[in-house]
Protein backbone atom coordinates (compact mmCIF):
# COMPACT_ATOMS: atom_id res chain seq x y z
CA UNK A 1 0.00 0.00 0.00
CA UNK A 2 1.55 3.23 -1.04
CA UNK A 3 0.26 6.69 -0.44
CA UNK A 4 2.53 8.62 -2.74
CA UNK A 5 -0.30 9.65 -5.00
CA UNK A 6 -2.32 11.35 -2.34
CA UNK A 7 -3.12 14.92 -3.10
CA UNK A 8 -4.58 17.73 -1.16
CA UNK A 9 -7.53 18.38 -3.39
CA UNK A 10 -9.54 20.62 -1.20
CA UNK A 11 -8.40 23.96 -0.07
CA UNK A 12 -10.83 25.27 2.45
CA UNK A 13 -10.55 28.75 3.70
CA UNK A 14 -9.11 30.10 0.48
CA UNK A 15 -10.40 33.59 0.05
CA UNK A 16 -12.70 33.79 -2.93
CA UNK A 17 -13.42 37.05 -4.63
CA UNK A 18 -16.64 38.89 -3.93
CA UNK A 19 -19.34 37.86 -6.36
CA UNK A 20 -19.65 40.29 -9.23
CA UNK A 21 -23.08 41.83 -9.75
CA UNK A 22 -25.03 40.02 -12.38
CA UNK A 23 -24.78 41.75 -15.72
CA UNK A 24 -26.68 40.00 -18.40
CA UNK A 25 -26.22 40.94 -22.01
CA UNK A 26 -29.82 41.77 -23.10
CA UNK A 27 -29.15 40.92 -26.74
CA UNK A 28 -27.93 37.52 -25.63
CA UNK A 29 -30.95 36.92 -23.41
CA UNK A 30 -33.31 37.52 -26.32
CA UNK A 31 -31.23 35.47 -28.72
CA UNK A 32 -31.59 31.75 -29.36
CA UNK A 33 -31.16 29.37 -26.46
CA UNK A 34 -27.53 29.19 -25.31
CA UNK A 35 -25.11 26.41 -26.08
CA UNK A 36 -23.37 24.52 -23.29
CA UNK A 37 -20.26 26.59 -23.98
CA UNK A 38 -22.33 29.79 -23.65
CA UNK A 39 -23.57 28.58 -20.26
CA UNK A 40 -20.02 27.97 -19.10
CA UNK A 41 -18.91 31.36 -20.41
CA UNK A 42 -21.70 33.06 -18.48
CA UNK A 43 -20.81 31.11 -15.34
CA UNK A 44 -17.18 32.19 -15.62
CA UNK A 45 -18.20 35.80 -16.11
CA UNK A 46 -20.72 35.89 -13.26
CA UNK A 47 -19.10 33.74 -10.60
CA UNK A 48 -16.74 36.32 -9.19
CA UNK A 49 -13.94 33.82 -8.83
CA UNK A 50 -10.72 33.97 -10.82
CA UNK A 51 -10.54 31.01 -13.20
CA UNK A 52 -7.70 28.58 -12.60
CA UNK A 53 -5.55 27.06 -15.31
CA UNK A 54 -5.28 23.75 -13.48
CA UNK A 55 -8.81 22.62 -12.77
CA UNK A 56 -11.22 19.69 -13.01
CA UNK A 57 -13.94 22.13 -14.09
CA UNK A 58 -14.05 21.09 -17.76
CA UNK A 59 -16.41 19.31 -20.18
CA UNK A 60 -16.41 15.57 -19.49
CA UNK A 61 -18.76 14.38 -22.22
CA UNK A 62 -20.86 15.65 -25.10
CA UNK A 63 -20.59 18.54 -27.49
CA UNK A 64 -20.08 22.01 -25.95
CA UNK A 65 -21.73 23.58 -29.00
CA UNK A 66 -25.01 21.72 -28.35
CA UNK A 67 -27.98 23.98 -27.64
CA UNK A 68 -29.04 23.57 -24.03
CA UNK A 69 -32.64 22.48 -23.44
CA UNK A 70 -32.37 22.44 -19.66
CA UNK A 71 -29.74 22.14 -16.94
CA UNK A 72 -29.56 19.58 -14.15
CA UNK A 73 -27.17 20.24 -11.26
CA UNK A 74 -25.95 17.37 -9.11
CA UNK A 75 -23.22 16.31 -6.72
CA UNK A 76 -22.48 13.19 -8.79
CA UNK A 77 -23.29 12.54 -12.47
CA UNK A 78 -24.60 9.01 -11.98
CA UNK A 79 -26.63 7.15 -14.58
CA UNK A 80 -29.65 7.56 -12.32
CA UNK A 81 -29.18 11.34 -12.28
CA UNK A 82 -28.74 11.37 -16.06
CA UNK A 83 -31.96 9.39 -16.56
CA UNK A 84 -33.85 11.81 -14.33
CA UNK A 85 -32.35 14.76 -16.21
CA UNK A 86 -33.43 13.37 -19.57
CA UNK A 87 -36.93 12.71 -18.23
CA UNK A 88 -37.07 16.35 -17.11
CA UNK A 89 -35.99 17.57 -20.55
CA UNK A 90 -32.51 18.69 -19.48
CA UNK A 91 -29.52 17.88 -21.71
CA UNK A 92 -26.78 19.62 -19.73
CA UNK A 93 -25.49 18.17 -16.48
CA UNK A 94 -23.50 20.40 -14.14
CA UNK A 95 -21.84 18.15 -11.57
CA UNK A 96 -19.55 18.78 -8.61
CA UNK A 97 -18.33 15.15 -8.69
CA UNK A 98 -16.76 13.13 -11.49
CA UNK A 99 -18.68 11.33 -14.20
CA UNK A 100 -16.27 8.50 -14.98
CA UNK A 101 -15.30 7.30 -11.52
CA UNK A 102 -12.03 9.12 -10.96
CA UNK A 103 -10.45 12.51 -10.71
CA UNK A 104 -8.97 11.90 -14.18
CA UNK A 105 -12.59 11.44 -15.35
CA UNK A 106 -11.73 9.74 -18.64
CA UNK A 107 -14.57 7.93 -20.46
CA UNK A 108 -12.60 4.68 -20.68
CA UNK A 109 -11.68 2.40 -17.78
CA UNK A 110 -8.18 2.73 -16.34
CA UNK A 111 -5.74 -0.08 -17.07
CA UNK A 112 -6.24 -2.74 -14.43
CA UNK A 113 -3.86 -3.39 -11.59
CA UNK A 114 -1.04 -5.65 -12.61
CA UNK A 115 -1.96 -5.49 -16.27
CA UNK A 116 0.52 -2.73 -16.93
CA UNK A 117 -0.21 0.76 -18.15
CA UNK A 118 0.46 -0.19 -21.77
CA UNK A 119 -2.20 -2.91 -21.86
CA UNK A 120 -5.57 -1.79 -23.20
CA UNK A 121 -8.27 -1.70 -20.53
CA UNK A 122 -10.66 -4.63 -20.42
CA UNK A 123 -14.15 -3.96 -21.79
CA UNK A 124 -16.39 -2.59 -19.07
CA UNK A 125 -20.20 -2.76 -19.34
CA UNK A 126 -20.75 0.14 -16.93
CA UNK A 127 -18.49 2.54 -18.82
CA UNK A 128 -20.04 1.33 -22.10
CA UNK A 129 -23.62 1.85 -20.92
CA UNK A 130 -22.89 5.30 -19.52
CA UNK A 131 -21.17 6.47 -22.70
CA UNK A 132 -24.00 5.04 -24.78
CA UNK A 133 -26.64 6.76 -22.67
CA UNK A 134 -24.83 10.09 -22.98
CA UNK A 135 -24.51 9.64 -26.75
CA UNK A 136 -28.10 8.53 -27.36
CA UNK A 137 -29.50 11.42 -25.37
CA UNK A 138 -27.05 14.05 -26.62
CA UNK A 139 -26.07 14.92 -23.07
CA UNK A 140 -23.34 17.41 -22.26
CA UNK A 141 -21.60 16.99 -18.92
CA UNK A 142 -19.60 19.79 -17.35
CA UNK A 143 -17.90 19.60 -13.99
CA UNK A 144 -18.23 22.49 -11.56
CA UNK A 145 -16.27 21.76 -8.40
CA UNK A 146 -13.07 23.76 -7.88
CA UNK A 147 -14.60 27.15 -8.65
CA UNK A 148 -18.05 26.67 -7.15
CA UNK A 149 -16.52 26.00 -3.74
CA UNK A 150 -14.33 29.09 -4.02
CA UNK A 151 -17.34 31.37 -3.97
CA UNK A 152 -17.72 33.35 -0.75
CA UNK A 153 -19.36 32.22 1.41
CA UNK A 154 -18.81 28.62 0.30
CA UNK A 155 -22.17 27.56 -1.21
CA UNK A 156 -21.66 23.93 -0.18
CA UNK A 157 -21.57 25.11 3.42
CA UNK A 158 -24.45 27.59 3.23
CA UNK A 159 -26.55 25.02 1.34
CA UNK A 160 -25.91 22.41 4.01
CA UNK A 161 -26.77 24.88 6.79
CA UNK A 162 -29.99 25.87 4.99
CA UNK A 163 -31.01 22.25 4.43
CA UNK A 164 -30.47 21.53 8.11
CA UNK A 165 -32.76 24.44 8.94
CA UNK A 166 -30.15 26.63 10.65
CA UNK A 167 -30.07 29.61 8.30
CA UNK A 168 -31.06 31.93 11.16
CA UNK A 169 -28.61 30.32 13.57
CA UNK A 170 -25.51 31.41 11.71
CA UNK A 171 -22.89 33.03 13.93
CA UNK A 172 -22.68 36.77 13.34
CA UNK A 173 -18.90 36.67 13.01
CA UNK A 174 -18.77 33.56 10.83
CA UNK A 175 -21.42 32.47 8.29
CA UNK A 176 -19.91 28.98 8.23
CA UNK A 177 -20.73 28.27 11.89
CA UNK A 178 -24.09 27.97 13.65
CA UNK A 179 -25.17 28.32 17.27
CA UNK A 180 -28.14 26.15 18.16
CA UNK A 181 -30.12 25.57 21.36
CA UNK A 182 -28.14 23.15 23.50
CA UNK A 183 -28.78 19.51 22.65
CA UNK A 184 -27.02 16.19 23.10
CA UNK A 185 -24.75 14.88 20.37
CA UNK A 186 -27.08 11.92 20.00
CA UNK A 187 -30.12 14.10 19.28
CA UNK A 188 -28.06 16.30 16.96
CA UNK A 189 -27.00 13.23 14.99
CA UNK A 190 -30.58 11.92 14.78
CA UNK A 191 -31.72 15.36 13.65
CA UNK A 192 -29.09 15.63 10.90
CA UNK A 193 -29.65 12.03 9.87
CA UNK A 194 -33.35 12.70 9.39
CA UNK A 195 -33.04 16.07 7.65
CA UNK A 196 -30.55 14.72 5.09
CA UNK A 197 -32.37 11.41 4.64
CA UNK A 198 -29.10 9.63 5.32
CA UNK A 199 -29.44 5.88 4.88
CA UNK A 200 -26.24 4.48 6.30
CA UNK A 201 -23.36 6.80 5.53
CA UNK A 202 -23.26 8.86 8.72
CA UNK A 203 -20.49 8.08 11.18
CA UNK A 204 -19.72 9.81 14.44
CA UNK A 205 -16.77 10.14 16.83
CA UNK A 206 -17.82 11.54 20.19
CA UNK A 207 -19.67 11.03 23.44
CA UNK A 208 -23.41 10.62 22.81
CA UNK A 209 -24.27 12.71 25.86
CA UNK A 210 -22.02 15.64 24.88
CA UNK A 211 -23.92 18.95 24.95
CA UNK A 212 -23.63 20.73 21.60
CA UNK A 213 -24.31 24.42 20.91
CA UNK A 214 -21.70 25.53 18.36
CA UNK A 215 -21.44 23.58 15.11
CA UNK A 216 -18.89 23.96 12.32
CA UNK A 217 -19.23 22.67 8.75
CA UNK A 218 -16.74 21.45 6.19
CA UNK A 219 -18.58 19.65 3.38
CA UNK A 220 -16.47 17.88 0.78
CA UNK A 221 -13.11 16.28 1.54
CA UNK A 222 -11.33 17.51 4.60
CA UNK A 223 -7.60 17.38 5.31
CA UNK A 224 -6.25 17.22 8.87
CA UNK A 225 -5.07 20.83 8.69
CA UNK A 226 -8.66 22.01 8.37
CA UNK A 227 -9.89 19.80 11.20
CA UNK A 228 -7.07 21.04 13.44
CA UNK A 229 -8.12 24.61 12.79
CA UNK A 230 -11.90 24.16 13.13
CA UNK A 231 -12.64 21.36 15.61
CA UNK A 232 -11.06 23.01 18.69
CA UNK A 233 -13.32 26.04 18.14
CA UNK A 234 -16.67 24.25 17.96
CA UNK A 235 -18.56 21.61 19.94
CA UNK A 236 -19.24 19.50 16.86
CA UNK A 237 -17.86 19.52 13.36
CA UNK A 238 -20.04 18.23 10.51
CA UNK A 239 -17.77 17.15 7.65
CA UNK A 240 -18.04 15.33 4.34
CA UNK A 241 -15.22 12.81 4.28
CA UNK A 242 -11.89 12.68 6.06
CA UNK A 243 -8.96 10.29 6.06
CA UNK A 244 -9.21 7.79 8.83
CA UNK A 245 -5.54 8.12 9.77
CA UNK A 246 -6.10 11.84 10.25
CA UNK A 247 -9.21 13.64 11.50
CA UNK A 248 -11.09 10.72 13.06
CA UNK A 249 -8.01 9.68 15.06
CA UNK A 250 -7.51 13.27 16.18
CA UNK A 251 -11.16 13.40 17.25
CA UNK A 252 -10.81 10.03 18.98
CA UNK A 253 -7.87 11.33 21.01
CA UNK A 254 -9.76 14.51 21.89
CA UNK A 255 -12.71 12.50 23.12
CA UNK A 256 -10.67 10.00 25.12
CA UNK A 257 -8.86 12.90 26.82
CA UNK A 258 -12.18 14.37 27.88
CA UNK A 259 -12.32 17.31 25.49
CA UNK A 260 -15.95 18.20 24.70
CA UNK A 261 -15.77 17.75 20.93
CA UNK A 262 -17.40 15.58 18.29
CA UNK A 263 -16.86 14.81 14.62
CA UNK A 264 -19.82 13.91 12.41
CA UNK A 265 -19.10 12.50 8.96
CA UNK A 266 -21.77 12.61 6.26
CA UNK A 267 -19.86 11.22 3.29
CA UNK A 268 -18.63 13.41 0.49
CA UNK A 269 -21.59 13.14 -1.88
CA UNK A 270 -24.33 13.62 0.72
CA UNK A 271 -22.41 16.60 2.14
CA UNK A 272 -22.29 18.22 -1.30
CA UNK A 273 -25.88 17.58 -2.38
CA UNK A 274 -27.30 20.81 -0.86
CA UNK A 275 -24.54 22.95 -2.40
CA UNK A 276 -25.68 21.87 -5.84
CA UNK A 277 -29.24 22.92 -4.99
CA UNK A 278 -27.79 26.37 -4.34
CA UNK A 279 -26.03 26.03 -7.69
CA UNK A 280 -29.31 25.38 -9.55
CA UNK A 281 -30.84 28.47 -7.90
CA UNK A 282 -27.84 30.59 -8.79
CA UNK A 283 -27.68 29.25 -12.37
CA UNK A 284 -31.30 30.29 -12.86
CA UNK A 285 -30.15 33.89 -12.39
CA UNK A 286 -27.17 33.50 -14.72
CA UNK A 287 -29.01 31.55 -17.43
CA UNK A 288 -32.59 32.79 -17.02
CA UNK A 289 -33.51 31.55 -20.49
CA UNK A 290 -32.94 27.91 -19.52
CA UNK A 291 -34.71 25.85 -16.87
CA UNK A 292 -32.30 24.77 -14.09
CA UNK A 293 -33.17 21.92 -11.76
CA UNK A 294 -31.39 20.24 -8.89
CA UNK A 295 -31.07 16.45 -8.98
CA UNK A 296 -30.07 15.21 -5.52
CA UNK A 297 -28.05 11.98 -5.37
CA UNK A 298 -28.88 11.09 -1.78
CA UNK A 299 -26.86 8.85 0.51
CA UNK A 300 -25.04 6.17 -1.52
CA UNK A 301 -24.47 4.04 1.58
CA UNK A 302 -26.53 1.65 3.62
CA UNK A 303 -25.72 -0.42 6.67
CA UNK A 304 -26.87 -3.90 7.51
CA UNK A 305 -29.05 -4.13 10.62
Amino acid at each position, binding site marked *: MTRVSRREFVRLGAAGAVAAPLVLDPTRARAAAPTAQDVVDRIRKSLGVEWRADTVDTFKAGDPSAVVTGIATTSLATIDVMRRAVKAGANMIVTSGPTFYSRADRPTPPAGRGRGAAAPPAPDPVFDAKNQFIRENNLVVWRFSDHWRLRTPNPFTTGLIDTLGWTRNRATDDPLRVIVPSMTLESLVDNVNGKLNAR*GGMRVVGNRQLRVRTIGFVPGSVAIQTTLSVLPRVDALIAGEIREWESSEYARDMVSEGLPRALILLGRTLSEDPGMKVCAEWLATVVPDVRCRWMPVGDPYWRPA
Partner: protein
Amino acid sequence: MTAGDVVERIRKNVGVPWRDATYRDTFKAGGPATPVTGIATTAFASFDVVRRAVAEGLNMIVPHEVTFWNDRDDAAIVSSDPLYTQKLDFLTRNNVVIFRMHDHMHDQRPDFLYVGSARELGLDAKYETAPGSHRFTIQETTLGRLAAEVKKRVGARALRVVGNPNARVSRIQLGVGYATPSVNDAAIDVVISGEQQEVDGGFDNPEYVLDAVELGIPKGWIMLGHAVSEEAGMLEMAQWIGRFVTEVPVRLIKAGEPFWAPR
Protein backbone atom coordinates in the same frame (compact mmCIF):
# COMPACT_ATOMS: atom_id res chain seq x y z
CA MET B 1 16.57 -5.35 26.15
CA THR B 2 16.25 -2.05 24.32
CA ALA B 3 13.85 -0.86 21.63
CA GLY B 4 16.84 -0.87 19.27
CA ASP B 5 17.32 -4.59 19.96
CA VAL B 6 13.65 -5.26 19.14
CA VAL B 7 13.84 -3.32 15.88
CA GLU B 8 17.07 -5.10 14.96
CA ARG B 9 15.35 -8.47 15.41
CA ILE B 10 12.34 -7.30 13.39
CA ARG B 11 14.66 -6.28 10.55
CA LYS B 12 16.49 -9.58 10.71
CA ASN B 13 13.31 -11.66 10.64
CA VAL B 14 11.06 -9.70 8.29
CA GLY B 15 12.39 -11.55 5.24
CA VAL B 16 12.38 -8.56 2.88
CA PRO B 17 15.01 -5.87 2.29
CA TRP B 18 14.67 -2.99 4.73
CA ARG B 19 13.54 0.25 3.11
CA ASP B 20 16.08 2.73 4.38
CA ALA B 21 14.11 5.61 2.87
CA THR B 22 10.89 4.82 4.73
CA TYR B 23 9.46 7.71 6.70
CA ARG B 24 6.71 5.54 8.11
CA ASP B 25 8.56 2.69 9.80
CA THR B 26 10.59 4.80 12.21
CA PHE B 27 10.56 5.81 15.87
CA LYS B 28 7.69 8.22 16.63
CA ALA B 29 8.47 8.49 20.35
CA GLY B 30 11.45 7.38 22.42
CA GLY B 31 14.38 5.82 20.61
CA PRO B 32 16.58 2.76 20.25
CA ALA B 33 18.18 3.20 23.67
CA THR B 34 14.88 2.98 25.59
CA PRO B 35 14.71 -0.20 27.71
CA VAL B 36 11.62 -2.26 26.84
CA THR B 37 9.33 -3.75 29.50
CA GLY B 38 6.76 -5.17 27.09
CA ILE B 39 5.37 -4.67 23.59
CA ALA B 40 1.86 -3.77 22.44
CA THR B 41 0.84 -4.03 18.79
CA THR B 42 -2.16 -2.03 17.60
CA ALA B 43 -3.75 -0.46 14.52
CA PHE B 44 -3.41 3.09 15.82
CA ALA B 45 -1.29 4.42 18.68
CA SER B 46 -4.29 6.35 19.99
CA PHE B 47 -4.00 8.17 23.30
CA ASP B 48 -6.25 5.53 24.83
CA VAL B 49 -4.08 2.66 23.53
CA VAL B 50 -0.99 4.37 24.95
CA ARG B 51 -2.63 4.73 28.37
CA ARG B 52 -3.76 1.09 28.42
CA ALA B 53 -0.32 -0.13 27.34
CA VAL B 54 1.35 1.86 30.12
CA ALA B 55 -1.19 0.54 32.66
CA GLU B 56 -0.35 -3.00 31.55
CA GLY B 57 3.38 -2.38 31.86
CA LEU B 58 4.07 -2.44 28.12
CA ASN B 59 6.21 0.56 27.20
CA MET B 60 6.89 -0.24 23.52
CA ILE B 61 4.09 0.23 21.02
CA VAL B 62 4.22 -1.11 17.48
CA PRO B 63 1.29 0.46 15.58
CA HIS B 64 0.53 -0.17 11.94
CA GLU B 65 -0.75 3.35 11.55
CA VAL B 66 0.00 6.83 12.80
CA THR B 67 0.46 8.36 16.24
CA PHE B 68 0.05 12.06 15.49
CA TRP B 69 -2.87 12.15 13.02
CA ASN B 70 -0.92 12.46 9.78
CA ASP B 71 0.86 9.94 7.60
CA ARG B 72 4.35 11.28 8.20
CA ASP B 73 3.71 11.86 11.90
CA ASP B 74 5.01 15.28 10.97
CA ALA B 75 5.13 17.40 14.10
CA ALA B 76 5.07 20.60 12.05
CA ILE B 77 1.46 19.89 11.06
CA VAL B 78 0.18 19.21 14.58
CA SER B 79 2.56 20.82 17.07
CA SER B 80 0.49 23.97 17.58
CA ASP B 81 -2.34 21.84 18.96
CA PRO B 82 -2.26 21.43 22.77
CA LEU B 83 -3.35 17.80 22.42
CA TYR B 84 -0.11 17.04 20.59
CA THR B 85 1.93 18.41 23.46
CA GLN B 86 -0.22 16.52 25.94
CA LYS B 87 0.24 13.22 24.10
CA LEU B 88 3.96 13.73 23.62
CA ASP B 89 4.38 14.65 27.32
CA PHE B 90 2.52 11.52 28.36
CA LEU B 91 4.74 9.38 26.14
CA THR B 92 7.92 11.00 27.46
CA ARG B 93 6.85 10.90 31.11
CA ASN B 94 6.07 7.20 30.85
CA ASN B 95 9.14 6.32 28.87
CA VAL B 96 7.07 4.98 25.99
CA VAL B 97 8.73 4.13 22.71
CA ILE B 98 6.69 3.92 19.52
CA PHE B 99 7.98 2.20 16.39
CA ARG B 100 5.62 2.05 13.42
CA MET B 101 5.42 -1.07 11.25
CA HIS B 102 3.61 -0.18 8.06
CA ASP B 103 5.55 -0.44 4.81
CA HIS B 104 7.40 -3.58 5.87
CA MET B 105 4.21 -5.29 7.01
CA HIS B 106 2.82 -4.82 3.53
CA ASP B 107 6.10 -6.02 2.00
CA GLN B 108 6.27 -9.07 4.23
CA ARG B 109 4.89 -12.43 3.02
CA PRO B 110 2.38 -13.19 4.06
CA ASP B 111 1.09 -9.67 4.65
CA PHE B 112 -0.42 -10.17 8.12
CA LEU B 113 -3.00 -7.46 7.50
CA TYR B 114 -4.65 -9.67 4.88
CA VAL B 115 -4.18 -12.80 6.98
CA GLY B 116 -5.85 -11.17 9.98
CA SER B 117 -8.73 -9.62 8.09
CA ALA B 118 -9.46 -12.85 6.18
CA ARG B 119 -9.35 -14.79 9.47
CA GLU B 120 -11.81 -12.43 11.10
CA LEU B 121 -14.12 -12.46 8.06
CA GLY B 122 -14.08 -16.26 7.88
CA LEU B 123 -12.53 -16.20 4.42
CA ASP B 124 -10.57 -19.43 4.84
CA ALA B 125 -7.69 -20.33 2.55
CA LYS B 126 -9.84 -23.04 0.92
CA TYR B 127 -11.97 -20.24 -0.60
CA GLU B 128 -8.98 -18.32 -2.00
CA THR B 129 -8.60 -18.65 -5.77
CA ALA B 130 -4.78 -18.69 -5.51
CA PRO B 131 -2.48 -18.15 -2.54
CA GLY B 132 -1.87 -14.43 -2.07
CA SER B 133 -4.57 -13.41 -4.58
CA HIS B 134 -6.81 -12.14 -1.73
CA ARG B 135 -9.64 -13.22 -4.00
CA PHE B 136 -12.18 -15.60 -2.55
CA THR B 137 -15.05 -17.53 -4.09
CA ILE B 138 -17.75 -18.29 -1.58
CA GLN B 139 -21.11 -19.98 -1.96
CA GLU B 140 -23.46 -17.61 -3.77
CA THR B 141 -25.40 -15.32 -1.47
CA THR B 142 -26.96 -11.88 -1.62
CA LEU B 143 -25.01 -8.71 -0.91
CA GLY B 144 -27.42 -8.00 1.94
CA ARG B 145 -26.78 -11.34 3.62
CA LEU B 146 -23.03 -11.07 3.03
CA ALA B 147 -22.89 -7.57 4.53
CA ALA B 148 -24.90 -8.68 7.58
CA GLU B 149 -22.55 -11.63 8.08
CA VAL B 150 -19.48 -9.41 7.72
CA LYS B 151 -20.86 -6.93 10.23
CA LYS B 152 -21.58 -9.72 12.71
CA ARG B 153 -18.08 -11.15 12.35
CA VAL B 154 -16.03 -7.96 12.59
CA GLY B 155 -18.40 -6.13 14.93
CA ALA B 156 -18.10 -2.82 13.08
CA ARG B 157 -20.93 -0.53 14.15
CA ALA B 158 -20.38 1.94 11.32
CA LEU B 159 -19.67 -0.42 8.43
CA ARG B 160 -20.90 1.00 5.11
CA VAL B 161 -22.15 -0.70 1.97
CA VAL B 162 -22.94 0.40 -1.58
CA GLY B 163 -24.85 -1.92 -3.90
CA ASN B 164 -28.17 -3.65 -4.32
CA PRO B 165 -28.83 -5.81 -1.22
CA ASN B 166 -30.51 -8.36 -3.49
CA ALA B 167 -27.57 -8.66 -5.89
CA ARG B 168 -26.33 -12.26 -6.08
CA VAL B 169 -22.63 -12.39 -5.31
CA SER B 170 -19.93 -14.99 -4.72
CA ARG B 171 -16.57 -13.55 -5.77
CA ILE B 172 -14.89 -11.32 -3.17
CA GLN B 173 -11.74 -9.26 -3.52
CA LEU B 174 -10.25 -8.40 -0.14
CA GLY B 175 -8.37 -5.18 0.43
CA VAL B 176 -6.95 -3.77 3.67
CA GLY B 177 -6.75 -0.26 5.06
CA TYR B 178 -6.66 2.29 2.27
CA ALA B 179 -5.47 -0.27 -0.29
CA THR B 180 -8.95 -0.78 -1.71
CA PRO B 181 -9.08 -2.67 -5.02
CA SER B 182 -11.20 -1.53 -7.97
CA VAL B 183 -14.56 -3.24 -8.15
CA ASN B 184 -14.84 -3.00 -11.95
CA ASP B 185 -12.75 -6.12 -12.53
CA ALA B 186 -15.04 -8.52 -14.41
CA ALA B 187 -13.85 -11.40 -12.22
CA ILE B 188 -15.15 -9.95 -8.95
CA ASP B 189 -18.54 -9.09 -7.51
CA VAL B 190 -17.68 -7.50 -4.18
CA VAL B 191 -14.80 -5.57 -2.68
CA ILE B 192 -14.35 -5.75 1.08
CA SER B 193 -11.76 -3.33 2.43
CA GLY B 194 -11.04 -0.68 5.01
CA GLU B 195 -11.33 2.77 3.57
CA GLN B 196 -11.42 4.61 0.28
CA GLN B 197 -11.73 8.19 -0.78
CA GLU B 198 -15.34 8.42 -1.91
CA VAL B 199 -14.84 10.74 -4.88
CA ASP B 200 -11.88 12.04 -6.93
CA GLY B 201 -9.55 9.13 -6.36
CA GLY B 202 -7.84 6.81 -8.84
CA PHE B 203 -11.00 4.72 -9.14
CA ASP B 204 -14.17 5.72 -7.31
CA ASN B 205 -15.87 2.45 -6.43
CA PRO B 206 -18.94 4.04 -4.79
CA GLU B 207 -20.06 5.88 -7.94
CA TYR B 208 -19.25 2.86 -10.09
CA VAL B 209 -21.38 0.57 -7.92
CA LEU B 210 -24.26 3.08 -7.95
CA ASP B 211 -24.21 2.93 -11.75
CA ALA B 212 -23.88 -0.86 -11.75
CA VAL B 213 -26.98 -1.05 -9.54
CA GLU B 214 -28.85 1.15 -12.02
CA LEU B 215 -27.84 -1.24 -14.84
CA GLY B 216 -28.66 -4.39 -12.89
CA ILE B 217 -25.03 -5.52 -12.77
CA PRO B 218 -24.29 -7.28 -9.45
CA LYS B 219 -21.53 -5.34 -7.71
CA GLY B 220 -20.96 -4.50 -4.05
CA TRP B 221 -18.59 -2.46 -1.94
CA ILE B 222 -18.25 -3.07 1.78
CA MET B 223 -16.08 -0.74 3.86
CA LEU B 224 -15.10 -1.93 7.32
CA GLY B 225 -13.29 1.23 8.34
CA HIS B 226 -9.51 1.56 8.39
CA ALA B 227 -8.96 0.53 12.02
CA VAL B 228 -11.31 -2.45 11.90
CA SER B 229 -9.83 -3.64 8.61
CA GLU B 230 -6.21 -3.60 9.76
CA GLU B 231 -6.41 -4.27 13.47
CA ALA B 232 -7.08 -8.01 13.13
CA GLY B 233 -3.66 -8.56 11.53
CA MET B 234 -1.91 -6.86 14.42
CA LEU B 235 -2.65 -10.03 16.39
CA GLU B 236 -0.55 -11.98 13.84
CA MET B 237 2.09 -9.26 14.17
CA ALA B 238 2.18 -9.67 17.97
CA GLN B 239 2.48 -13.45 17.62
CA TRP B 240 5.25 -13.07 15.03
CA ILE B 241 7.28 -10.65 17.20
CA GLY B 242 6.73 -12.97 20.16
CA ARG B 243 8.63 -15.69 18.30
CA PHE B 244 11.91 -13.79 18.37
CA VAL B 245 11.37 -11.49 21.34
CA THR B 246 10.85 -13.87 24.22
CA GLU B 247 12.25 -11.73 27.04
CA VAL B 248 9.18 -9.48 27.43
CA PRO B 249 5.43 -9.91 26.91
CA VAL B 250 4.08 -9.08 23.45
CA ARG B 251 0.36 -8.65 22.86
CA LEU B 252 -2.31 -6.87 20.87
CA ILE B 253 -4.04 -3.87 22.42
CA LYS B 254 -6.95 -2.95 20.21
CA ALA B 255 -7.55 0.65 19.29
CA GLY B 256 -11.00 -0.45 18.18
CA GLU B 257 -13.47 1.25 15.87
CA PRO B 258 -13.55 5.02 16.44
CA PHE B 259 -17.05 5.47 15.00
CA TRP B 260 -20.63 4.89 15.95
CA ALA B 261 -23.59 5.32 13.67
CA PRO B 262 -27.12 6.58 14.18
CA ARG B 263 -29.82 3.94 14.34
